[in-house]
């Protein structure tokens, strides 16, 4: 086991606050402080501006761009940022082709644009991205799910990347991309690849809708819907398209956000696809890499009263600490987001209203989302990126606007949420049209910060300035028998009365990636009684009596369960 302790930059602040707060015996006692975010975008040096490639023709792909990825591309121990960008669509004139942008984290919220050096400046129309070590060589690779040909970038281990799409065979034709995930479908130790596809689009079939005689984006139902793609990793740097044989190819849909997770606790990874304006799909893995679509039976296809909605992003996490992974799905305006509580036996209950998990989301169009314990109190809160889809919505609607405020729902610890956006600091006052959002500890101070991609605008970087003395632990997994990133591994952290689980995902939220390391808030607990890692393939490692407030790297097989 390798342990790396990170000194908290605000240790002094925490110490003072801790001295002032009356500590109670309950871990929840410290959870009442509001979560606070500060907009530090201007200080970061990030100058990226997203472009959607539009020229007034209202091509559907413009409206849904794009996701972002947070990952440590250079293995230096801090999280870097990768923004997707659009490219000029038919009829759009552009002097220089917009590129995706990679920003290296230099610490203290300072970033340097390393796009050129890294070779990650793809000029395709970026929609979805995921990150994973598909070749198990110890560094993370990047897969882009574009409108147009997709790209797989292999990390050379020296801060540069090489386009290996052709060799890997994952160009995926000429589709409109969406979310994408690396996952190990058959527990063979390497990462396979799921590629969501949105609609079948072509310029000649394109037609914008008119709302009150204003041109506007057409919904996905106007187009034919494609099946998604699944590629099996051959272990030699190449992949085989197994969409048909796996069962995935039987289902046409308007996939957007996706997440892969073992929702039924059977030791293999399943796939949740958030579909736009139709039922969501939940592909249950039989353990061999064959999938059955069970969304309807499981109760996640629709909302509680059976209404379909326009799903956008999806994340999973155990919000109520019952040992089962729940799903949270964002959606269209005048549709609440949805929280699907896992009630075991492969079944879910839509508890959005009773849990207050949709508070403040009805009036907004919601996109990027994530479960994250922003106040380190031992339960997962929810962040929701919002922004209208129609760029000209103000012209035909008097009560809707394009740029809106993002939302934060704080978990109150009793299975309920409260919308605290108003009280969540200046960072939540920013009004832009957000899409992808990622959640990671950018300054290694023990709390989770936020990065948001705003369409047709610069990003928003929010520093978590939540003022409390709660403890935490961050866990980074290193697979040896299973895949190198530990994608799909389940981690259980137990501290006295508090038991939490999480799983490593590659690809999540709205067509993006974040959270390669796992975050656990510990409340007042300074020590963790037990950390249990269940690796894909069945291996189990256990660590006992671990000090809090550190990032731990755990390597598979180094702490076998006795």
């Amino acid at each position, binding site marked *: 086991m390798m342990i790396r302790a990170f000194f908290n930059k605000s240790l002094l602040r925490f110490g003072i606050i801790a001295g002032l707060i009356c500590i109670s015996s309950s871990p929840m006692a410290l959870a009442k402080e509001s979560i606070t975010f500060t907009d530090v975008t201007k200080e970061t040096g990030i100058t990226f501006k997203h472009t959607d490639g539009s020229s007034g023709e209202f091509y559907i792909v413009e409206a849904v761009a794009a996701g972002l990825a947070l990952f440590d591309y250079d293995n230096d121990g801090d999280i870097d940022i990768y923004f997707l960008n659009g490219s000029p669509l038919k009829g759009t004139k552009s002097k220089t082709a917009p590129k995706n942008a990679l920003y290296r984290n230099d610490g203290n919220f300072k970033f340097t644009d390393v796009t050129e050096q890294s070779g990650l400046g793809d000029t395709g129309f970026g929609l979805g991205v995921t990150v994973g070590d598909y070749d198990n060589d110890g560094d993370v690779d990047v897969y882009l799910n574009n409108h147009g040909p997709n790209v797989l970038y292999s990390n050379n281990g020296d801060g540069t990347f090489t386009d290996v799409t052709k060799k890997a065979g994952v160009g995926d034709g000429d589709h409109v991309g969406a979310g994408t995930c690396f996952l190990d479908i058959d527990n063979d130790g390497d990462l396979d690849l799921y590629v969501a596809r949105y609609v079948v689009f072509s310029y000649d079939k394109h037609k914008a809708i*008119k709302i009150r*005689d204003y041109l506007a984006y057409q919904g996905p139902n106007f187009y034919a819907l494609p099946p998604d793609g699944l590629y099996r990793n051959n272990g030699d740097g190449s992949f085989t398209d197994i969409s048909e044989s796996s069962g995935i190819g039987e289902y046409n849909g308007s996939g957007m956000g996706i997440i892969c997770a073992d929702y039924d606790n059977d030791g293999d990874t399943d796939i949740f696809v958030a579909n736009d304006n139709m039922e969501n799909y939940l592909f249950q893995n039989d353990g061999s890499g064959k999938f059955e679509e069970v969304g309807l*039976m499981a109760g996640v296809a*629709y909302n509680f*009263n059976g209404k379909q909605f326009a799903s956008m992003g999806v994340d999973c996490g155990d919000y109520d600490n019952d040992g089962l992974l729940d799903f949270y799905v964002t959606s269209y305006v*005048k549709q609440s987001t949805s929280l699907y509580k896992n009630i075991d036996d492969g079944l879910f209950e839509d508890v959005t*209203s*009773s849990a207050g998990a949709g508070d403040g989301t009805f009036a907004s169009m919601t996109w990027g989302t994530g479960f994250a314990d922003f106040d380190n109190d031992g339960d997962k809160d929810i962040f929701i990126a919002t922004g209208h889809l129609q760029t000209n919505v103000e012209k035909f609607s008097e*009560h*809707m606007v394009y740029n809106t405020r993002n939302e934060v729902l704080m978990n109150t610890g009793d299975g309920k949420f409260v919308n605290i956006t108003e009280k969540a600091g200046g960072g939540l006052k920013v009004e832009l049209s957000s899409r992808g959002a990622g959640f990671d500890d950018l300054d290694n101070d023990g709390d989770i910060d936020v990065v948001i991609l705003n369409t047709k605008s610069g990003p928003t970087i929010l520093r978590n300035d939540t003022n409390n003395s709660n403890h935490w632990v961050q866990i980074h997994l290193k697979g040896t028998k299973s895949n190198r990133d530990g994608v799909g591994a389940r981690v259980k952290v137990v501290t006295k009365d508090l038991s939490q689980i999480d799983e490593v995902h590659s690809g999540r939220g709205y067509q993006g990636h974040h959270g390669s390391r796992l975050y656990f808030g510990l409340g007042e607990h300074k020590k963790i009684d037990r950390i249990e890692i269940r690796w894909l393939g069945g291996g189990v490692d256990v660590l006992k009596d671990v000090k809090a407030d550190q990032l731990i790297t755990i390597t598979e097989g180094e702490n076998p369960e006795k």
Partner: protein
Amino acid sequence: MNTHSNHLQQFSQGPLEKRLCRFIIAFLAIAAFCISTSLAATEPEITPGQQANSIIEKQLSVIAEEVLQDFPQDIQLAKFAAEFYNQCERPDAAVAALEQALKYNPESYELCNRIAKTSFANGSYDKAITYWRKALAISPEKLDLNNNIAETYMALGKYAEAVTQLEKIIKKEKGEVFPALDYSKSYFLLGQGYLQLRQYEKAKEYLEKALVITPEHRMGHYQLSKTYMRLKNPEKAKEHMELYTKQKAETAERKEAWAKKRKTAVINNTADADRKVFSRTLTRLSARGSRLYLVSGKSQSSQELFNKAETTFQKAIAIDAGQSVLYRQFALLYVMTNRKLDRAQGLAKKAVELEPSAQNYLMLGRIYYQNSDRANALITIEKAIALEPGNPLYRRTYNKIKKGADK
């Protein structure tokens, strides 16, 4: 003369007159907008359809605001205004218009129901419940409102409250059948509520009851399938899921066929469609508003509040310029007060132009006579007589003028 100047002073200073001024200014603004937009053909972002819709929308907005201020108590007016506000996606304004009318008509079931519906559609669930409860108190026989209340409780995640609301009705008096209650919906909602409360046997009971009444209730099959899954009966779950899927596919086919038929028209003619909707609302709102102004103007005339009546008729004509009766009544006001007879003649001519009826000819004839134009008076009244030869009043008036009687 003093009285007249007092009236004029009131006209320029009174609140009613101020509103009229605003009203006229607004209309001038619309006219200016029409001219400017027609000249601004080079502006690429605005299509002719958008221009036309924008004009009509602004016009509606001005009228709605004005008439609601003058007749806040009128239910019909509030309904039409709310319709317009909803069409413009201004639910808050719609609810405000309806709530204002409700202040004057606290026993209006219709207003309460409309406020609740608008609130529900826009996610204001607490408000929806409040007003559906009021509606139910006003019209207890409207038992279906219980379904609406229960549905709203569910949207709030208050499943126990939803179930209580429905159980009260279902079990009120055993054996008694309430014709006004959609039992299928009540049973379905009960089933759904119990499903969320994890009382699966009860959920099954009620969903099955709903399906006995309405076997084609697609969502009933869906929820029952979910219930059976929770009851660990996958066979039955599958059975109902298949029924659900089959019915869904059939519905989708029907929808697709309809959409194919409509698609081109809908996509290409949204401006026309919007304009039709706005025009219909404008017609209804204007007609109701002008009628109210007419009644009000007549009443003010009979109370000899002539200046007020003058303002009222002006407003009536401003919002509904196609109604001949407004011009005739306005002309009559001047005839009664024996002033502005030239204006009265113009108004009466306009009435005839809009509608060449006997009544309008008679009015115009009388004004010609009062303006000492005996020849035209006789010709005009002859036309009235030709249209209604049996009406003795026209003949009497004609004879009186012919004999050269005093005006």
